[in-house]
């Protein structure tokens, strides 16, 4: 998928009204909380990626969420 498709998927998964871009700090997304992390784990699982709770510990920006998707983003 493309970067913009991934960003759309993130908006839907986190259920946020924020406009997401790579530089945006995760702390600035009001809905980025423990519920969002469950949803994100499920999203990565759907993409056949092994992403567990500890992978979210040191993430700072939306770009970090993109890196977790690795080669799934063109």
């Amino acid at each position, binding site marked *: 998928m493309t970067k913009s498709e991934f960003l759309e998927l993130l908006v839907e998964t986190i*259920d946020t009204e924020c406009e997401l871009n790579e530089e945006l700090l995760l702390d600035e997304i009001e*809905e980025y909380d*423990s519920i969002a992390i469950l949803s994100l*784990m499920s999203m990565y699982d759907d993409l056949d990626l092994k992403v567990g*709770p500890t992978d979210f510990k040191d993430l700072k920006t939306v770009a970090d969420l993109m890196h977790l998707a690795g080669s799934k983003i063109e």
Partner: protein
Amino acid sequence: MAKLHFENIAIKAVVTTVGDKKITIEEEAHNFGYDDKMIKRLKKRMGFNSRYVVNGGVCTSDLCCQSAEKIFEKFDKSEVEALIFVTQTPDYKAPSTAIIMQDRLALSKDIVAYDINLGCSGLINGLLHSYSLINSGLETVLLCVGDVASNFSYYKDKNLTPLMGDAGSAILIKKGIGLGDFVLHSDGSGYKHLIIPEGGCRNPFNKDSLKENNFEDGVRRGVDLYMNGSEIFNFTLKVVPKMFEELFNFANVSKEDIDYFVLHQANKYILQNIAKKLELSGEKLPMDTMTIYGNQNSASVPGTINGFLSDEFSSKKLKVLFAGFGIGLSWGACLVDVDNIFAPKIQYYGEKNDKK
């Protein structure tokens, strides 16, 4: 993986009693510091709504005894040869509550009775014990399962408490027509993800055990249950669909052969994810028990039968899959036949047994 196959054993009755006090998420949101926006989000994403709990002092055995007495309106209690009680909330640390229940229920003194300490996977393990006893020669087993979760989830723990309901079920299993296939797993490496840390022998009850501690996910004490929600969710996503494949292969069935998937009702979000992975509709995999009654631990499979599938189980011959997963970590599933069983709608604690 433990795999077991049984023949000529049948579930005859399933009755669930829940606590008689209904609490909505709005009513207790102040305990967790949730604002209106968060309540809306929890309702939409996780299926939070209400839960039924007992008033202080009511034990799981009280709920289970009411359920069992309902069964004995239809079945002869003198036929019971074993009573197994699966719970994490026994009446006492010792002796086994099942033995006390023998007397309370006026069952024969010739029965075998014991407790099993398990939570969310407890129904499957309890059925396994029941089927094994019948396979070894007994005719009739009474299995009681459940927890009074309000006993171990602290009222200020926003991560856990709004999820939990109190329920106690009784299930009658007899020699009869029906197959049973089981798969079970245990992984103690994850024991810290769901644990009551203090009050046992490893960390005995001490002067600080009732002291409140502030955590990111709420306030709790050493004697309360702790849950690492994201680890448990991750565990569930990984093991449950795989376990179903194992059971389908072992029992030589396909998912189309199964009428209902009755799963432990951890929360609606987990069940939606499992249903999505297995490409199952909500009709075949009910997922509203936690939303209405709360997560009922080992009673959530029978709680779902009595809460949402009472008519179907009471009037049809069905092939059903039951599954439990959680504390331990422990997970298991079984495939059983049921044929027009006694499965009345949910009972409320204190409700007269003769109430129709």
